[in-house]
């Protein structure tokens, strides 16, 4: 099926939306675009406006101001047409306690014109053995996998996932990441929200950082890190007394600090590590430990907002 072309060839186009609840401004002047076939993450702390933004895009809420286009459609006006082409997983959603896994999949399948094979979907998501289990008996990870199955049953072009891995243990979380990459690899666009920076960094092709209802920056995780936290550091342990001076001579190095045998080299750019290694081998400096300190999205967030995402 041919996709209608949205303004700039984007799957999702959000432009200057604002949403208030009473006197509380939940989302203010938010704009971004999501490209075809990418995993796009909206990241920020709880209460930053992630879910409100997402639910406006899904058509569950109507923004007070601004425009949204999903697959060229207005979610508020064309909800019915859009519902058939998107898959949605909602934060803290539940199903009937005593609905069986296969019954939920079967019900969802009956609602759409185009569907994928529900049994195969359950198999892919590792739920085949739970087909006859009641929803209330599933573990957190199994429930989330069922919600992913329901979001995928209509073979959607865009999949929306809201805080998908919250409350899951690390192992279940990794398994879900694999699933999401699989969804992208089958040509679908994934839009997700998370407050877990590690998740965003590992999973998302691009992220938008949201804070107090405003978008702070949008880019690939690696480029956000380069742009906002270009500092790199190398920590090494050596008995060589001359090491300190030699390392300081590297042009890219800003500062070298020393604490007994432990030397920390501060500099900028991705080449810092390579240059430190070259310097060590040229001068035959013997090291007993070597570690690199690379900033992550967590640091970017701290830099951009002045506080940690966990605060």
């Amino acid at each position, binding site marked *: 099926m041919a996709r209608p072309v949205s303004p700039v060839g984007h799957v999702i186009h959000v432009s200057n939306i604002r949403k208030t609840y009473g006197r509380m401004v939940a989302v203010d002047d938010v704009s971004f675009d999501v490209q075809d076939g990418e995993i796009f993450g909206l990241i920020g702390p709880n209460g930053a406006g992630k879910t409100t933004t997402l639910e406006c895009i899904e058509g*569950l809420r109507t923004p007070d101001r601004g425009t949204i286009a999903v697959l060229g459609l207005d979610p508020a006006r064309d909800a019915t047409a859009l519902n*058939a082409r998107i898959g949605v997983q*909602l934060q803290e*959603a*539940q199903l*009937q306690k*005593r609905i069986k896994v296969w019954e939920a999949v079967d019900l*969802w399948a*009956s609602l759409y014109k185009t569907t994928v094979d529900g049994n195969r979907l359950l198999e892919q998501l590792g739920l085949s053995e739970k087909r006859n289990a009641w929803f209330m008996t599933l573990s957190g990870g199994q429930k989330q996998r069922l919600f992913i199955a329901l979001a995928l049953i209509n073979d959607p072009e865009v999949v929306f996932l809201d805080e998908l891995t919250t409350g899951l243990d690390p192992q279940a979380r990794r398994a879900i990441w694999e699933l999401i990459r699989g969804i992208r690899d089958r040509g679908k666009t994934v839009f997700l929200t998370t407050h877990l920076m590690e998740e965003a960094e590992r999973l998302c092709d691009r992220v938008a950082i949201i804070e107090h209802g405003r978008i702070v920056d949008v880019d690939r995780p690696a480029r956000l890190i380069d742009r906002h936290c270009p500092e790199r550091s190398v920590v090494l342990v050596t008995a060589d007394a001359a090491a300190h001076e030699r390392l300081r001579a590297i042009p890219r190095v800003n500062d070298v600090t020393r604490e007994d045998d432990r030397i920390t080299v501060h500099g900028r750019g991705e080449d810092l590590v390579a240059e430190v290694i070259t310097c060590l081998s040229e001068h035959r400096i013997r090291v007993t430990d070597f570690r690199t300190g690379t900033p992550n999205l967590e640091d970017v967030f701290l830099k951009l907002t002045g506080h940690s995402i966990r605060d």
Partner: protein
Amino acid sequence: MNPMRGLLKLTWLEIKIFLREPLGAFGTIAMPVIAFVVLGRIAGGSLARLSPTSRGGTLVAVSFPVFSTVLIAISAVLSLVTIISIYREGGILKRLRATPLSPLTILTAHVLVKLLLTATTLVLMVLVGKRYYPVGVDAPLAGFTLALLISTLSILSLGFLISSIVPTARFAQPLGAIILYPMIAVSGLFVPIASLPPLLRGLARFLPLTYAVSLLQGIWTHEAWSAHLGDIAALSLAFIVLTAISTRVFRWE
């Protein structure tokens, strides 16, 4: 998508889910029937001698069948109100909303479930009642069923309105009870409307249950439908107005 297919599937699914509830089938279907049988045994053969056609006459012949059906209909409304608010609170309504299911389909499915369960209970009671209440069986069952359906839909639409506006499941049941039980009290079921104080009589005129009771009692005692056109008009009007308001004010979360 096919809305009919979704409705039938959801209705069937909700029936299955309901029957899986502990006490679900027992409380809703078996209990009223058992209570009916126990009452019948206690009252014994004395009931058989009562005439069904003595208008306004005996409690058992006229009021009891109507009374019990109204009570069952009311409890169906109360459980509808409760289940909608539980679904809302649990995020189930919200999840269903993000599908091509329309709100009307979801609510209709629940109404169908309640109607089917109520019908099952009543059919069982009639079957059992043949033995203990021989008087009741020569009542016009088909007409009474139709009258009951009209009445139930009208009362259900009031249930809709309540479930559309109550904030949480904890409020739903008591609020439903506060509205419904006084409605029963002034409906003419216990005390004839004519002998109520003027204020309550005026109140009764605005409540759909009053017309439901009048219609049900009339049909049960072989009165002509033409004598109850006013009741039917009032019940239909209540259904249309209340449903229209509830679809406007319905909250998904």
